[in-house]
């Protein structure tokens, strides 16, 4: 462990001085570097303000049932974690992992933003800045940038549009299910030529072609799964957009959505286990803005999330042991149910941390402030006790091997107040 930290500090120092890894001598550290090159990180962004008190209902908290009224879950409805917390009944796969010590909750995590605006909070979550408009690049992209002098690390986002978290100097890949590229057609080559001097389209298109090739492999590897219809998997990245409306979904559609979500997760896993595949990936799930009629809506959304995570677990196979997955949202929701059977924009929420790389046996991550009136943030929201940048920094340092000084300076500037969460892996 000590050797590893030294190794990382050295590499980081080398990087900051512009010295390449070759100079440092790969043979000395080869074994460790090889290990690090297998480490994987997936960030799941749950957009819309995911209700933490639904993800991990604190059924053992004396104030929970009162505050939640008509949308409270009973202790016998949740999947039990400990005396205070359960998991939402739809999070079956997450619960199974939790029982093995491969999933933990951070029940009062928040970004440093307090405006309760989706868009501002999502920006802050994805840029990793201390406040909105702090920077225009995403923290996962700056991670790739920080690692570039040490070893080449690939990043991938799932979905047609590039999320802010992976935007920046390094051209990350993006992928969503489609019909593939005809390798024999001249057009891709001609277009690469036409884009040669285009700083935006050139790199993006080249990256897209590479990713398509990789996708063929990822899907071929999974074709053992009978009757796989990958086209259907385009739905879960925008579950709300997948149909005319989420509330119009019947059980059959929900099942189809869940299946598609699972396949999307397993395909992403298939990408990540390939040689030269992405070590870092981001995926977004929408539809968590549950202002009204929350119970059914969030059940559907969480079942999709569970399916994506379950699929990812399956798709990664043996590489699960090298993986950490973090699922976070831009903010939580009000502790009290509102007038329309839903909840409004709040502050802290629940983050999920999963993976075979986690140290076994740990309780909740961060402190639980409780739901007493005087414990609520501004007398309305779960109070934040953990800055999510601390979680990100801890995982990037201990799991991916990013130098701590570079983390503080380049990846999460102005985050000194957010202490890295250590001891997770």
């Amino acid at each position, binding site marked *: 462990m000590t050797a590893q930290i030294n190794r990382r500090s050295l590499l980081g120092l080398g990087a900051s001085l512009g010295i390449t890894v070759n100079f440092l001598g790969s043979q000395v550290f080869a074994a460790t570097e090889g290990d690090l090159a297998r480490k994987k990180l997936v960030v799941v962004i749950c*957009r*819309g303000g995911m209700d933490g008190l639904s993800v991990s209902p604190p059924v053992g908290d004396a104030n929970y049932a009162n505050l939640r*009224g*008509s949308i409270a879950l009973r202790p016998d409805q949740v999947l039990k974690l400990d005396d205070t917390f359960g998991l939402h009944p739809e999070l079956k796969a997450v619960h199974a992992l939790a029982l093995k010590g491969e999933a933990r909750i951070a029940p009062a995590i928040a970004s440093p933003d307090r*405006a*309760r*605006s*989706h*868009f*501002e909070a999502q920006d802050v979550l994805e840029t990793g800045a201390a406040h*909105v408009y702090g920077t225009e690049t995403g923290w996962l992209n700056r991670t790739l940038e920080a690692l570039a002098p040490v070893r080449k690390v690939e990043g991938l986002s799932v*979905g*047609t*549009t*590039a999320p*802010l978290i992976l935007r920046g100097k390094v051209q990350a*890949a*993006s*992928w*969503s299910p*489609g019909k593939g*590229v*005809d390798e024999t057609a*001249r*057009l891709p080559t*001609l*277009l690469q*030529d*036409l*884009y040669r001097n*285009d700083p*935006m*389209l050139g790199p*993006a*298109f080249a*990256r*897209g072609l590479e*990713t*398509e090739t990789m996708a063929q492999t990822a899907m071929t590897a999974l074709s053992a799964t009978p009757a796989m219809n990958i086209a259907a998997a*385009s739905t879960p990245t*925008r579950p*709300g*957009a997948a149909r*005319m*409306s*989420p*509330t*119009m979904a019947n059980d059959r559609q929900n099942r189809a959505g869940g299946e598609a979500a699972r396949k999307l997760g397993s395909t992403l896993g298939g990408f990540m286990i390939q040689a030269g595949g992405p070590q870092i990936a981001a995926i977004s799930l*929408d*539809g968590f*803005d549950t*202002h*009204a009629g929350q119970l059914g809506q969030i059940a559907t959304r969480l079942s999709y999330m569970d399916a994506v995570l379950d699929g990812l677990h399956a798709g990664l196979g043996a590489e699960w042991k090298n993986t950490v997955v973090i699922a976070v949202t831009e903010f939580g929701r009000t502790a009290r149910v*509102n*007038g*329309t*059977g839903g909840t*409004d*924009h709040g502050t802290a929420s629940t983050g999920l941390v999963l993976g075979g790389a986690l140290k076994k046996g740990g309780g909740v991550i961060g402190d639980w402030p409780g739901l007493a009136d005087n414990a609520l943030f501004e007398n*309305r929201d779960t109070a934040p006790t953990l800055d999510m940048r601390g979680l990100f920094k801890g995982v990037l340092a201990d799991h991916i091997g990013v130098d701590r000084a570079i983390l503080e300076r380049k990846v999460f500037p102005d985050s000194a107040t957010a202490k890295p969460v250590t001891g997770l892996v």
Partner: protein
Amino acid sequence: MSKIACQRKGERRLSLPSKDMMAAIAVTRFGLGARPGEIDAAKADPQGFLIAQIRRDGADAPQDGGETSAQRFEQMRDYQQQQKAARQKKDGEASDDAALQAAKAAQLALRDKVNADFLARARLATNTPAGFRERWALFWANHFTVSATKQITSVLIGPFEREAIRPHVFDSFETLLVASSTHPAMLTYLDQAQSIGPNSQIGLRRRGARAGLNENLAREIMELHTVGVDAGYTQSDVTEFARALTGFSVGRDNEDRQGQFVFRDAAHEPGARTIMGRRYAQGDIQQGMAVLKTLAADKRTARHVCGKLARHFVSDTPPPALTARLEKRWMDTGGDLAQVAKALVESPEAWDPTPAKFKTPYEYTLSTWRLIGAEPSAIERLAPILTGLGQKPFSPPSPKGWAEDAQTWASPDGLIKRMQWAQGFAAVVADRTDPNALAVSALGARLTPPVAKAVSRAETRKEAFALLVMSPEFQRR
């Protein structure tokens, strides 16, 4: 060639490009892409060509039979009741296949109407000779986003644009804001219809059980529609505004104005409100209206919305001088949107020959149809590609609406999917075209030698067509 020169911040003199270049810019950047001959038509007076498209009575209405939001609301309610009845029977002893079939049929009928609304709007965009007017309307429809991600709202989007947006896009901003904030589509999409003042008659009667405030619309009006998130308002301002808006609702089945805007006095929270330092006396509907009026007139609203306009039309990072010009005209004219549109056309910064905007999937696909002077023949020609490119019809993922920046849309996966679609489109239409002539009619003076060369050297018409529509010049505007 006449040159109009203007002063920018007392620094260098800014001149407009040639008339030929301006004609190409007028049609592609301000409009929706060139239909055959359109750039030629704009050549004599490119700015006049655009200004002539501004008209007080608003944007064009898509031709789709024109059901009102009230009719659609009623149809949706009928469907929901049918479905409820069918489900109850299903849970009972014997399942009622006929009832289930009827509910299913009603659902499909509604879906067809939403599709028809979208197709009509797309056809208007592909056929209109007034591309700037339509783009201006689309900007406002996206600014006041309502989304089909909510069932009840999905059937109201077409009527919303026809009733609340299109008639007012060259009216005052205040009129547009009030029309949007009182339309059933917005009231359902952002949950306002059910928001109830805790101390209103209804609130006191129900005592908290499924009765209370919902602050969704109040927050998004401030954050997205008017002053913007950085205006310095607080949570208390949002809650106070939500209280002022209680009573803004949609008529129910048993009310006179079913499916239309109603002010429900019994749901309105009594008392004066203080919002952003300004006090609003106790009142009925006038209280909420007064807040809307104040927000519309706020200079932070002008800054927020003019910045968005500049980013939509000109560049993801527009010159500050352009935004300042729009803001000034806005404030000088009390938010007269016809005047703001005119100011945009008159701003020399908007005519930079270097295209800075990357077309969104909607803009991109529709401009391809315009290029060949055609329209999508069916929703199946349009919906799959838009969904594949991340812009599913009528379904922006959040109240912020669709992103409009290149970073979002010029993703590796987005480019691959555009290419696949371009190949498929070319396979169907290219053999009836002369790609070299199309390149000129599509881009005019914006056509660059590398693109012209690539098109002329292509092996087949299909390849030439795909190269043209995938060229950096065609994908930008």
